[in-house]
């Protein structure tokens, strides 16, 4: 069963198409890696799923609920982290999460649970503006994880983290479906990263979905087209390159 499904989802700006007739199928209880080079349309797609920008065409369903009719219900069930960590610099980490907790109507314990999950418990009383970049990133993640939402939409969540932090967050994301029975839709431009945590991947280039399926399916599909499969990074780059060539050299 798919928890997120898009039907011909499209976003056009004057002069260019950021996302073109996208048909995504995100299975429930999985980590779905949304891959693509910078500017492929990953963040635009995620923003459309969160109602931050209005699609030009197409529609989508999240957990059986259709946007925009069920917007409030969808937003109650989706935890998100988009582009950069969002926080009130004048408030502590704990106070920041308290604001989100109040809006979502969650129990008080959910704040300490979210802080614990991202390893910020010891820094909960520190002002968010005094956090390091990695800590701000973790606070943003805590804001997405608070209340254990059934769907998580994470846009490049490991940006700005050191290698240890990347490993820790990756392990956390990997464990979420099992731990909290949720689905994670996570974007990245690094296949090496997605490879270590995703069950399924969707590869986007210039707003078009080039591939969707498991990593195993990706290998089979690449081999069938004569692309290298020893290293998934190479597979991904060759796939993008071939698509760019088909489009007449546009990168």
């Amino acid at each position, binding site marked *: 069963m798919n928890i997120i499904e898009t039907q011909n989802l499209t976003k056009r700006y004057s002069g260019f198409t950021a996302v073109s007739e996208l048909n995504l199928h995100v299975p429930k209880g999985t980590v779905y890696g949304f891959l693509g080079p910078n500017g492929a349309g990953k963040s635009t797609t995620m923003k459309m799923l*969160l*109602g*931050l*920008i*209005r699609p030009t065409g197409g529609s989508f369903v999240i957990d059986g609920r259709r946007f925009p009719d069920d917007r*409030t*219900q969808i*937003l*109650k069930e*989706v935890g*998100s982290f*988009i*582009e*950069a*960590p*969002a*926080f*009130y*610099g*004048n*408030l502590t980490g704990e*106070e920041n999460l*308290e*604001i*989100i907790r*109040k*809006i*979502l109507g969650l129990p008080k314990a959910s704040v300490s649970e979210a802080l614990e999950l991202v390893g910020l418990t010891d820094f909960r009383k520190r*002002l*968010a*503006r005094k956090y390091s970049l990695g800590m701000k990133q973790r606070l943003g993640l805590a*804001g997405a994880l608070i209340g254990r939402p059934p769907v998580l939409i994470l846009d490049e969540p490991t940006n700005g983290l050191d290698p240890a932090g990347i490993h820790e967050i990756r392990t956390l994301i990997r464990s979420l479906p099992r731990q909290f029975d949720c689905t994670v839709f996570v974007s990245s431009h690094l296949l090496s990263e997605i490879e270590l945590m995703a069950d399924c991947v969707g590869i986007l280039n210039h707003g078009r979905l080039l591939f969707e399926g498991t990593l195993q399916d990706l290998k089979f599909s690449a081999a069938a087209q004569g692309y290298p499969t020893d290293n998934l990074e190479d597979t991904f780059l060759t796939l993008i390159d071939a698509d760019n060539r088909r489009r007449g050299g546009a990168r």
Partner: protein
Amino acid sequence: MSLVLEFRKVKRTGLAEAFLGGGILAAAVPFLNMTFRSDRYLSANGSPVTILMDANWQMMSMLNVLLTVAGACILYHIEYADHTMQKMNTLPIREVRLFFGKAGVIFTFSILFLLTEAASVAACAARWFGSGPETAARVLYIFGFALLMLLPPILLSLLVSSLCRNMWISLGIGVVCVFAATMLPTRDFVLTLFPFALPFQTPGSLAADAVRNYAIAAAAEAVLIVLLEVIILNVRRLFE
């Protein structure tokens, strides 16, 4: 709940201190004026409260409006500075509720600084004119009217701040509007309906029907600004 949330958000922004300081500064205006120039006012005709308001209200109301403009800028700056507005839009809360919450915060602080100023005017009336407790009702009436007149600039400042991601732009617009309001001719009723000019009106120097007209105008402007904010927020979403 939005109001409580907005009060939590302004912690450590200096907003409360700014309103407190501004309120005390505005309240000090009649006191200082009477301390150094009491001869000029003690010989004037009229009720003590009207004399005090005519002498000081221009400066006091300018401080009040500038405070509300600065407050509105700070309230939206904390939303835009670190992408929290985007985060709020991914939560099940309408942006217009944030607007109402922020309006509630400034309105509450306005009540507090106007009460401080009212206490100062009442104290001056008692100290220099020997007025009794009967002055209190008149002072409260005048400052209640001032609160109503402050509503349109509060809402308009918030509307401008909600549209500008850069705080300096909204602050600049607000300051220009306040100074433009001080330059408008006060005898032309239509021109004094400019939202930022309304707080300069005081019922002591107005006829009863003019007081009523200003009250109706302020309420109508407040409703119109709120409607405009709702429309702008919906239209803006279409272009994102």
